Every structure is written in structure tokens, then in C-alpha cells.
């Protein structure tokens, strides 16, 4: 049986394999450790963390959609200091890089949260979630304006001692412009995609299902949008992309690599099956073996050459 080299490098961080959970679908790992050995993961990506504790949104917070789901959790988290003190140390034992997803409402909040996190020995990289509404700009999202996205990226880069990934929102006219703006601002990598904004209506009660009205659409339904955006962006940036959006199988992961991702993150699929990440990893390895692929790295961008070539 051929040995497949699953390792990838992301902004100087070597991952023993390219599969990790997506932020918000893994909490801080404690509960998942009951379902499998977390050291099998390529990296651990934890819940969106803010400077202060956030209670999150009222419920219902989740709704089902065809091949997908909506969530409006509202970033419930205990705040960065408790995350550093109480959550991250427990992840040391697994010996895999920990990436902390950082959220905020104003640039200073991102910066301060990032500064504190990057000072922790438990943090290997940051992932800036710039899909949150910027309270200063009337709730407009950092992630939809290239200038704002660049500003928050540069500010965080200035204080961070670890690599900074910027997580892009798909709810934009021109994802390439966003990606290029944050690359120029110093981002070490990109995570894409975050959720699409959607809604469902409870027709019996004649109101939105989610208490927050709108929520983020994730799961297999959004996979084609994620692949398209990764394909477009990876053509023009030089920084690596962590690909996500509807991955539920090893073949899905292969699709993301071929579109241009250097690693993959698994979100909603964890709700289908708690062992999704490691199952996908096993399927990916098996696929490579069956297809004579010696190193998963070889797949990155393989479909970029395109059609009829």
C-alpha cells in the first residue's frame, strides 16, 4: 500500500495533514475529544473569539435549508482572556497547531484581541473573521469593503507574532478585490469562504425562523460558490488558502485542493457526523492512494489549467 504524504505548509506552519475543523463548528475542542483523538487533525481551529465575553443571539439560532443550514449564533464566547486561560491550554496535549478565529466590531477590538492571543504559546496562527458588522461604519461589514478589510488586516499584522489568515466573506460583488487587498495589507493566508447570508420563514407563524431574522448559510449547498471563489482567488494571490464551504467527503476535499486550496476546513459536516474531520481525512488519503497521488500537495490548483488542455 502506497504511503501518501499528506503534509502541507501554510504560511510557514507545517501541518501533518491538511484537514481541520472550521471555526464555530468545534467550539474549543473539549467536546469533540470524546469522539476521536484530536491529534489526528492537521490543525485545530477554534470558535470566533472577541475581546469581551459575548452572550450571542437569542434563539432559534439555527435552521435547516436544503443541503445546508443557517446559523446566527452571534459569536457567543467567553472573551479572549478566558479563552487563553481556560480553553487553549487543554489543546496542547494534541500537538497540533491551534488557529484562533478572531472577531470584533471596531479595528481596536481586533487588534487588542489579536495582540493578547499572539502572546499565548498555545496559538499558532490567527484567523481574522472580517464578516462581522463594523459598528463604527453603521454596521457595514469589514469583509465587504477592500479598504476596511486591508486596514484591519494591517493593524492586526502590526501586533501579531503569529501568521494571520484573513477569512473572507462570500457576500461580495468582487471577492478577488477583497483577497488582493488583504494580501497587499500583509495577510499570510486566506480562509474562504465564510457563510452566505440567508433566511428561512416559518410559514405557520409568519415570521423568520431565526430570532435574528438572517443567518449564515453553510453546508453542501454553498460548495459550488466556495469552489468558484477559491478558483478565482488562487489564480491571482500568492498566499495559501484554507478552503471550506460544504465539504463532507474526501472527494469534496480533493475538489477544493484542485480548485486551489492548500488545506481544507470542515464545518457543517461535523453536525452530520462528529467524526467528519477524520473520516474525510481517511477518505482523502484513500483517494490519493487509489489515484497514485503520492503527496496531497500535488493536487493544489490541479484544475487551474482548465478545460480542453
Amino acid at each position, binding site marked *: 500500500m502506497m504511503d501518501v504524504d499528506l503534509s502541507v505548509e501554510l504560511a510557514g506552519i507545517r501541518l501533518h495533514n491538511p484537514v481541520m475543523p472550521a471555526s464555530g463548528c468545534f467550539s474549543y475542542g473539549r467536546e*469533540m475529544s470524546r469522539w476521536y483523538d484530536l491529534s489526528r487533525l492537521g490543525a485545530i481551529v477554534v470558535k470566533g473569539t472577541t475581546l469581551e465575553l459575548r*452572550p450571542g443571539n437569542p*434563539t432559534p439560532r*439555527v435552521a435547516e435549508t436544503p443541503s445546508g443550514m443557517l446559523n446566527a449564533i452571534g459569536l457567543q464566547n467567553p472573551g479572549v482572556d478566558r479563552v487563553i486561560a481556560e480553553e487553549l491550554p487543554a489543546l496542547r496535549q494534541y500537538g497540533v497547531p491551534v488557529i484562533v478565529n478572531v472577531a470584533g466590531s471596531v479595528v481596536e477590538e481586533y487588534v487588542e484581541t489579536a495582540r493578547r492571543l499572539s502572546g499565548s504559546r498555545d496559538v499558532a496562527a490567527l484567523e481574522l473573521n472580517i464578516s462581522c458588522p463594523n459598528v463604527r461604519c453603521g454596521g457595514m461589514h469589514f469583509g465587504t469593503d477592500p479598504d476596511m478589510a486591508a486596514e484591519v488586516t494591517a493593524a492586526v499584522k502590526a501586533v501579531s507574532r503569529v501568521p494571520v489568515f484573513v477569512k473572507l466573506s462570500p457576500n461580495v460583488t468582487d471577492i478577488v478585490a477583497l483577497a488582493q487587498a488583504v494580501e497587499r495589507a500583509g495577510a499570510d493566508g486566506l480562509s474562504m469562504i465564510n457563510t452566505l447570508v440567508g433566511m428561512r420563514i416559518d410559514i405557520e407563524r409568519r415570521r423568520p425562523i431565526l430570532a435574528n431574522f438572517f443567518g449564515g448559510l453553510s453546508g453542501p449547498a454553498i460548495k459550488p460558490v466556495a469552489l468558484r471563489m477559491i478558483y478565482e482567488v488562487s489564480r491571482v494571490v500568492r498566499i495559501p488558502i484554507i478552503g471550506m464551504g460544504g465539504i463532507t467527503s474526501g472527494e469534496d476535499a480533493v475538489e477544493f485542493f484542485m480548485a486551489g486550496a492548500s488545506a481544507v476546513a470542515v464545518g457543517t459536516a461535523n*453536525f452530520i457526523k*462528529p467524526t467528519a474531520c477524520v473520516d474525510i481525512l481517511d477518505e482523502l488519503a484513500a483517494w490519493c492512494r487509489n489515484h497514485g497521488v503520492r503527496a496531497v500537495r500535488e493536487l493544489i490548483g490541479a484544475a487551474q489549467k482548465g478545460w480542453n488542455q
Partner: protein
Amino acid sequence: MMAQVVEQERLTRDVFRLWIEMEHDAPWSPGQFFHVRVGEGLDHVLRRPISLSEAVSDRRFALVYRVMGAGTRWLAGRRPGSALDVLGPLGRGFPLHPGDERVLVIGGGVGVPPLIQLAREVRRRGVEVAAVIGFREARDVMLVDELATLGPVHLLTEDGSAGMPGRVTDALGEDFLRGADRFYACGPSPMLQAVQGKLSGHLPGYLSLEERMGCGIGVCMGCVHPIRGGDGSPVYRRVCADGPVFPAEEVAFS
């Protein structure tokens, strides 16, 4: 985890009892739930939480569910012998208190099923059980026999077409509560809120809550409910992992 469908019984026009047999023994307690995968393919990415209603061994369980939407409709189509992908039993069930001599179980609609196994466990410990159960109308009534073998059952229907007319709280008069040590309630939110209103300060007890769930295993923060902490102020806690059962006095309703 794969389980096998052993039996599918129709209890009322829209409620079914599904018997499943797990591949392996699973520790369980009354009040816990299973997170059930529904449908084939990727159409339904969310599992459906259904409470454990009865356990006849450490691997054979009954789930009683009402057909509400696409997922439970699919479930009602499963035939004996077919495989079912379930996680569980999950969550924290009803705590039993040594020293209790008489407890009340209070259920409404599909909140009644989880009380069956609870009442059995309580009886097994020699504790007396009285049940107060409410349904919309006569044709929704179910599981009375199962409870009647364990103790007195007070049946109510909203339209009076079976048992006494009214809601479960109408049966919770002072006389009735006398001598009771604790209550356990399961049912729709408005019922739980009414029970809490009626009994708080009179009788300690537990409420089993319902919220829409994502993961069912505590990682997504989808299923939270405001629960009063030590300082009395409500914080969102996870129904799937910290509950579904919480001490009644700690549950905040908005």
C-alpha cells in the same frame, strides 16, 4: 452510530413509537435524547433530537415522536430491519434524588414519552409516582396505560374530550402537591413556563427544555437557553450538553 429499527408502532394519528437496537451497549438515563440522522444523501444536514422514551436493555430503546416535518415524516417510513444513524443517548437526563418518597411527572403532548422511563426508574427505587399529562384532544392521548401501571394518572385534554378539561397546571392544586418531594416536567415551552410559574416556591423540580439544535454534542452553541447562574442572572447554556434537563428554578423564560 448505527442502530437497527426493530419496530415501528403508530400510537395516534401522527405519533409513532420506534424501537431501535444499538450495535453496542450504551449508558443511558431517562431524559436523555438521541440525535437522529434523517433522509438519504445530503438534503438534511441537521439531525433530529428525539428523547429516549423507554429502555428495555442497554441497547434497546423506544423513541416516541410526532410527525412534524420532512425529517419525522421520513422517520415514520422506516421499516423493521432498516438501519438508523443515531447519536446518543446524549445530554443530561433527570437527576433522581435519594430520599424522595413521592414525585410528580408532568407532561404535555410529545413531552409525555420521556416520562415513561423516568417513572419506571423512580418506581424501581420504591418512590411513588403520580403523573399529570395533558393533550390537545382525545385523539392525541397516548401512553396512559404505560403510566397507569406505575401510579395514578391525571389526564387532561384542552377540549375536555378525554379526562378532565383543561391544562396540566389546572391539576396542580395545593391538595395535589401535598406530600410530593419533587416534580419533573417535559412538554412545550409555554407549558413548562406555566408549570414553573405555578410550582416555583412550592416544589423543587426539573424542566426538560427544547431548542432547535445543530450539532447535539455541545460544539455549535445553536441550542442555548437562558439559565440563571449563581448570581441569578441568566446566561445562555446548551440544551444539548448542559441539559436538556435543568433545575426548574434556574430556567429563565423571555
